[in-house]
């Protein structure tokens, strides 16, 4: 018997992003949809950044998670269009990011406040950070540097 769509989404929502484990691949918005083709479950994944090394690992993690639930035949389809955007981050994902110390993306192009002390006195150190999706910022109130999840 096939599992329900709701079950499959719930299982996928338990697959963490390998670099930012507090958010799931569903929160990140990279799992676009899934379809059945015969007995094969085809999962469409949109990469965040084209060179992100985590992409291969994410595909493997999704396959493994679904196999662990008894789905033998899983195929990951890479879908590049439309391109991934940070607008696809879920509200749950944004809240988890901030609690983890990473400022969530803002349309203005910079964080609205420090994820640690919540001060709005922040300045940019660099547009690039420890992973392709992040930039480095600093809080001028608590003086702590922090990651900002870039708008894309």
């Amino acid at each position: 018997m096939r599992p329900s769509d709701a079950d499959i989404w719930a299982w996928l929502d338990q697959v963490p992003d390998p670099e930012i484990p507090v958010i799931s691949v569903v929160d990140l918005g990279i799992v676009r949809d899934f379809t059945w083709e015969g007995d094969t479950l085809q999962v469409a994944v949109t990469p965040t950044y084209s060179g992100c090394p985590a992409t291969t690992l994410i595909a493997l993690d999704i396959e493994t998670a679904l196999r662990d639930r008894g789905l033998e035949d899983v195929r990951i389809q890479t879908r590049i269009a439309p391109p991934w955007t940070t607008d696809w981050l879920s509200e749950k994902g944004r809240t988890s990011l901030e609690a983890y110390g990473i400022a969530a993306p803002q349309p203005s192009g910079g964080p609205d406040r420090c994820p640690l002390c919540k001060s709005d006195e922040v300045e940019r150190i660099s547009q690039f950070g420890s992973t392709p999706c992040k930039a480095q910022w600093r809080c001028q109130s608590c003086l702590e540097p922090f990651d900002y999840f870039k708008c894309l």
Partner: protein
Amino acid sequence: MDVFEFLCRMGDNTLVLGSRISEWCGHGPALEEEIALANTALDLIGQTQMWLGLAAEVECRGRTADDLAMLRDVWDFRNLLLVEQPKGDFGQTMMRQYLFDQFHLPYLEALVTSSDSRIAGVAAKAAKEAAYHLERSRMTVIALGDGTKESNNRMQAALDLLWPYAGEMFASDDVDRSLAKAGIAPDPKDLRAQYLEAVGWTMEEATLTIPEGQFCHAGGRTGARHSEHLGHLLSTMQWLQRAYPGATW
């Protein structure tokens, strides 16, 4: 095979420049700069996978993106001469990056409306990343140009050295004209005026002077005459696949 030729030009630019800027890995002048260059290289290599993957697909000869990257020789590469030039000092690397980024982003943005939806899809993805590259390389060129006497001298020397390579980006040929006619890609020569204006503004802010003269080096994007630097780069990049054919890990 105009489309194949075009896709190789796109993919070879990003492959060769991505490889060139990874030469700074472990040698950046500051941690932030090091990370920024590594991130840019990663984006460019990711874009290469998409462009050369598509090239291999339209070629229909059973080759893959990896085959095209690792098993072609100098004369088959279609990248601009600019991107294969050696890294020089950090200023020279950033000048090379800026002169490319300022062309790359508008070109990708124009490709988003390509009549070929696969090309439009890759361009839409790549353009988002290229916007970050341009923002940073432009700011760095301005900061170093309008910096100390030493940094200004170095940036002016970099501009004098690299400017004659910028013209090749707009030297259209039959491939460009045929793709423009089919609505697949813009004719690069139509982007030249916009480029000159943007670079002019940047250099003015950077207190740098664009050299006079119309001479430009050419031969990279047609494959007719690469500089000697490309062979050395490929010998490093392709060594493993040449020495151990088919090696995987």
